[in-house]
């Protein structure tokens, strides 16, 4: 069972919402589409669902043309970022709705609805009205409605984005459990997110989208280790990977007259010349023997500190363990962990990664 998209394009006025999108997805796998806002993720999911028709290109499911099948006849379930339910129905009636449309017998509906509700932790909530539930519970109802259908394709469009932090963390863990069961059955699960951490946690296959295009499709591990371009590295890291222009010159990397360091061994095969170098925030640390930078901002996030520093035109963000305070404008010494350095060509293509990608 495969879902194949061939050259899907959708254009509104002058902007492409989908630009020549092609992919192949198989059952039993979780696919995470990651991209920034307006990257085309929701448009792609709606196109798969049949809510939007592509201007060109096509979709085939199990060898059959998907485009000619109306939305309500596609075996698809979808959870949106808004908590979309039927406000006039109870929790039970909401979850039973898709089954009633299929004319399934009452006893079977009852069995499946009860199972789905207990799967999402809403076992005793069947008689409640939707408005009487919290945001997280409403989203669980939507999730139960998508599970109960036992659809061939389950689309989840940033389902956690409108929840508060704690609930998001909790549901994310629960989702993982539910998805593993679901994906191991007979479904293709497609999850869209703007959050790299979420995408990496879910694992599976990742499709990186930007400006309506799919930039890279690979496993989570591969995307993390070998992003094919500087853009992908930025989209799939939070905070975005630090990128800075420099040169390889006489066995050294030169970022500025004051900032030079030895070429790491994994760059040995690279020729001399101009490159864009990339380094994750976690590979930046404080070191008395490091390079001088001035503090622009320090942000505390949980038990970590994001340190924004600058040296002339070079701006980088470091992720430091523990909560640390730095006065704005103060001086710090920064060390680059060059073992984790990436090299991109000036047009953004990956030239070398610490995990052995390209050369």
């Amino acid at each position, binding site marked *: 069972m495969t879902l194949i998209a061939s050259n899907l394009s959708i254009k509104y006025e002058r902007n492409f919402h989908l630009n020549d999108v092609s992919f192949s997805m198989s059952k039993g796998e979780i696919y995470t589409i990651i991209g920034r806002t307006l990257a085309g993720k929701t448009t792609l999911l709606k196109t798969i669902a049949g809510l939007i028709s592509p201007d060109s290109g096509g979709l085939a499911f199990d060898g059959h043309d998907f485009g000619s099948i109306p939305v*309500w006849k596609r075996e*698809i*379930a979808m959870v949106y970022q808004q908590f979309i*339910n039927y406000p006039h129905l109870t929790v039970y009636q909401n979850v039973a709705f*898709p089954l009633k*449309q299929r004319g399934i017998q009452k006893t079977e509906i009852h069995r499946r609805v009860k199972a789905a509700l207990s799967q999402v932790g809403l076992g005793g909530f069947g008689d409640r009205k939707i408005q009487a539930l919290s945001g997280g519970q409403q989203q669980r109802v939507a999730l139960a409605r998508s599970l109960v259908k036992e659809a061939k394709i389950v689309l989840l469009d940033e389902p956690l984005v409108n929840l508060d932090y704690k609930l998001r963390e909790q549901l994310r863990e629960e989702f993982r459990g539910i998805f593993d069961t679901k994906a191991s059955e007979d479904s293709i699960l497609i999850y869209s997110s703007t959050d790299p951490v979420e995408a990496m946690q879910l694992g599976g296959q990742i499709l990186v989208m930007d400006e309506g295009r799919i930039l890279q499709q690979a496993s989570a591990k591969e995307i993390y280790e070998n992003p094919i371009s500087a853009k992908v590295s930025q989209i799939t890291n939070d905070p975005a990977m630090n990128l800075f222009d420099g040169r390889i010159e006489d066995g050294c990397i030169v970022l500025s007259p004051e900032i030079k360091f030895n070429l790491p061994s994994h760059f040995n095969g690279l020729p001399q010349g101009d490159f864009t170098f990339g380094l994750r925030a976690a590979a930046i640390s404080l070191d008395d023997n490091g390079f001088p930078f001035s503090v622009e901002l320090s942000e505390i996030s949980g038990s970590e500190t994001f340190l924004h520093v600058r040296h002339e035109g070079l701006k980088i963000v470091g992720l430091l363990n523990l909560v640390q305070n730095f006065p704005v404008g103060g001086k710090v010494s920064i060390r680059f962990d060059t073992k984790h350095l990436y090299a991109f060509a000036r047009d953004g293509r990956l030239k070398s990664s610490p995990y052995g990608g390209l050369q």
Partner: protein
Amino acid sequence: MNFKHKYMFLLPGLLVLLAILIFPIGFTVRLSLSSWDSFYPGLDFIGLENYIRLFTDDSRFWEAFGRLSLLSLTTVFLQYIIGFSLALLVWKEIRFQRLFRVLFLIPMMTTPVIMTVVWRTFFNESLGPVNDFFNLFGMQPLWLSSEILSKFTVVLVEVWQWTPFMFLLLLAGLLSLPKEPYLAASIDGAGPVRTFVYVTFPLMAPISIGAIIIRLIEASKIMDTVYVLTSGGPGTSTETSSFYIFIKGLREFQFGYSAALSITYLVVMIISFTVIAKILVKMMVRGE
């Protein structure tokens, strides 16, 4: 501010309420207990005599009431069906949507009495254009002087005149519906008909009930259409309660008796609308 002064601000409103609502009702109740007519004007006291007469010796009022129920329920039912259909038609993006919306509202913008005169001319049995058409087939229906057809004509005029009001309320309701349940319904496998039955109709229930009750209240006062179109005739076949009360009060000048009719009519209407509203809520709001 002194506590008593606060009540001074309420006084203008209370006085207006007293003048336009409480006094007329109170006076009508008192009037209904009198025998005031054109021969013996004056507020004498005859107890419940008028009411006893109404319940024991005036089948014409109850027949008129039955007719009123038939006419108002039929017209409002048709107005709801047609109004909802038209609202659904221009709810979705269609060509000339705005033009249609304005066209559908035109009947409501016209003066009811003048339009009824036009309709009367239209349905005139010997000179009207409707019968000119039917004459082509050798028929001459008695639109205004047949017992059944005259009711049909009253219903037709009322439906034509007031369907736009229903259309307007229901279209406003449709336009205010949330979009999300429709997304969910299409994904959940509901086609256009099922989406209407399971999503649009239940979501529109509160608005529908409001619109139906407003129109029923208006329709129960049906008077001008009957007055101009048939004058309650032929015989009493289109005579409604309000028209009968008008005859007793302002043609026969039985003020005391017509006041008793009015009070009875008011009480019956309040009870009827309460019951109707409860039935509508039960019928239309699922899952309550």
